[in-house]
């Protein structure tokens, strides 16, 4: 794929889940591959149990923020947030999402209802050209850490052919940029995501 192909990725998750760590890892991977990369995020008050959104832009885009309909790829680390972020995806874009729910407080206290996963998938498919829903949290647990569930999703993204680099680049970046003690877990998690995408295509 053309290294200068312009791609805009919208990422969303819940505060404390590691969304920003995943964003930085993917941005570093792109930079190591020699791509133009800009990432955008917002820190602070919104993080405490709130929604955490970030963007990664490849190939020369400059604005660290996306509007509705601009993202080529949506990466949802939590299914309700995938649904909330759906307006950002352009028609025919690709979705990679966790299907393991983290219920908001209002749902925990029985004041609101969590939307059904089947409905989330259906709405996603109405916009996206392709969508992948993976049990990230349980796959993360399988290799020993819930947090590495995010890397499952990054692995799926890199193996899908949607980016100008593959899981090989991500593996290198994990080795280079993550703390040594979590490298092995994350590489295992990454390959679980890779396998899911390869099995689906």
């Amino acid at each position, binding site marked *: 794929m053309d290294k200068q192909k312009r791609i805009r990725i919208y990422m969303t998750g819940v505060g404390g889940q590691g969304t920003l760590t995943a964003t930085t890892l993917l941005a570093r991977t792109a930079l190591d591959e020699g791509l133009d990369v800009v990432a955008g995020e917002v820190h602070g008050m919104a993080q405490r*149990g709130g929604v955490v959104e970030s963007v990664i832009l490849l190939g020369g885009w400059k604005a660290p*923020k996306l509007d509705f309909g601009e993202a080529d790829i949506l990466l949802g680390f939590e299914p309700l947030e995938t649904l909330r972020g759906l307006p950002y995806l352009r028609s025919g874009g690709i979705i990679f999402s966790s299907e393991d729910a983290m*219920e*908001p407080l209002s749902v925990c206290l029985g004041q609101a209802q969590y939307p059904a996963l089947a409905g989330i998938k259906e709405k996603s498919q109405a916009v996206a050209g392709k969508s992948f829903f993976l049990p990230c949290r349980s796959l993360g647990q399988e290799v020993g850490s819930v947090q590495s569930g995010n890397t499952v999703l990054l692995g799926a993204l890199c193996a899908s052919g949607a980016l100008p680099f593959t899981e090989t680049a991500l593996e290198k970046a994990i080795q280079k940029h993550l703390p040594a003690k979590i490298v092995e877990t994350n590489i295992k998690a990454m390959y679980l995501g890779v396998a899911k995408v390869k099995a689906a295509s």
Partner: protein
Amino acid sequence: MSHPLLGGAQNERHLLLGNEAIVRGALEAGVNVVTCYPGTPSSEVPDTFYKLGGNGRYKMEYSVNEKVAMEVAAGAALAGAMALVTMKHVGLNVAADPLFTAAYTGMPGGLVVLSADDPACHSSQNEQDNRYYARAASLPCFEPASAQEAKDMTHQAFRLARELQQPVLLRTTTRLNHMRGAVHFDALPQEMPLVPWKNESMRFVPVPAVARNRHKVLEENMRLARNFAETSPWNVESGQGRMGVIASGIARAYLADALYAGGWEDKVRVFELGMSWPLPETRLKEFLRQCDRVLVLEEGEPLLEQGIRDLAQRHNLPVNVAGKNGVLLSIHGEYSTSSIMQGLAAFLDCPSPVTAARAHTTGLPNRPPNLCAGCSHRAVYYAVRKLFGDEAVYSSDIGCYTLGLLPPLRMADFLVCMGSSISAGSGFAWASGKPVIAFVGDSTFFHSGLSGLVNAVFNQHDILMVILDNGTTAMTGHQPNPGMEQAVLGEGVQHLDIESAVRGVGVTEVCRVKAYNLKALTEALQNFREKKGVRVLIAEEPCVLYARRVLKKTLPQVATVAVQGEDARRCAEELACPAFYKKDDDLYVDATLCSGCMVCLQIAPKAFKAVKR
């Protein structure tokens, strides 16, 4: 291996946060002294300096408030140091007094002021546009729009600050502070030598006779700064045609993407202002002569737009100036690629290529920010609401505890600014005769709550002040403050005892309790309820996140529901701890979220019990 910000050599390329790039720029300039008061979105600048340590390269402090930070930095710059002071936009209001004087006397070593503005109020109480300060105080101003520019302009700001001896404003917005991008490093020299101090009291002591003269010097220095703006590599022209666009700040990034996406790169003539004050009037005038119409793109107030109109009017230029249109290009919130595309389409009188979103998702359960599970503020708020209900008025302050505003605790009726809880609360009680309870955190207490307390004692106000002492600056990421324990502060800073400070200014009704102890809290509150005058309750318990991450303390037990029913249900509703969850009408405690504070056991001893973690 040393951190790339300190160890990275010339020509290396690293992915940096905008705020980290500012740090590298300051290091490349040779900064000697850094002061700050933390505040989103500026905090990663001082936090990065703090983490790096500097290895003797620079001195760095967390000051107690922005005014003090500005004064310490000004003193250092008077002593000849290259000084950086950082704060969020509203902090600059606190620091405005010394800033205006610093511009009059000049700062021999070079002073750069970072103001991190927050359009869209991501974590602030207003959207104020601090480019006004550049105009009001006469400060040359830089506005980066990428991580690379954040580094390079910081470096440039220091060079200009030292050359002109005038304070320079580095004005950023949230999106710049929190963006990441590739940054090419320049060489890292040793820190700059101090400019030798020359005793010139007729310059540095601005009595009226001095100040009148210095005002003229300031005017002349701003004329020199204008020459810099005329030749600055950050003020760039491109494109062609009779339709012009003038852009500054992060709007430049949105503009670049909009021009690309709309295929308009050859259709407009563009003037980008990276050094945005003073305006390069000669060049702008020439630019305006080449245009029939111009569109000005800037987030926030229409400052640049007014400047361009003024320029056109003064020079009789027949150019039509457009800018804020009150709709997509308004003074509210942030610009975006699509808002600029639509603005440009209207300006160029062509169809907008922006397509509407395909999906609409409304009515989803939200995730509002909330006090953490086990947050000690919740325990205090619960006790206060139980005792005072709606009979008292609650004066809040700035910190995590502002979130006590949310139901069911509803512990914030009004809030003015940092440190205002005690002083605004005093005024409210004075005027209304109602009981007022003021809540303030430890860092905010030292920031400016202390002066309000002094005033309350002096003027014999009738107020109960509750100091929510969680031992850290929780909201902005656990930065040191004087209330932090000595073991965490380490060497070079001194712990201050809040109770001694409170007693020291003359408060006699003082009580210190553990925030998780509902009985002690309630007794203290009951005692104060019967009394008049200034009363201070200090409720102590470390912030749960800070206890876990920094103090490495976790409580050995967690709560669990022993008996389902009315008691458990009411406790969950009134305390609203996020560790509670319901399933099939039964209540549970999420053991991974429960901090073990055991406040629910005190509220409903039959409904809950403690179990080993």
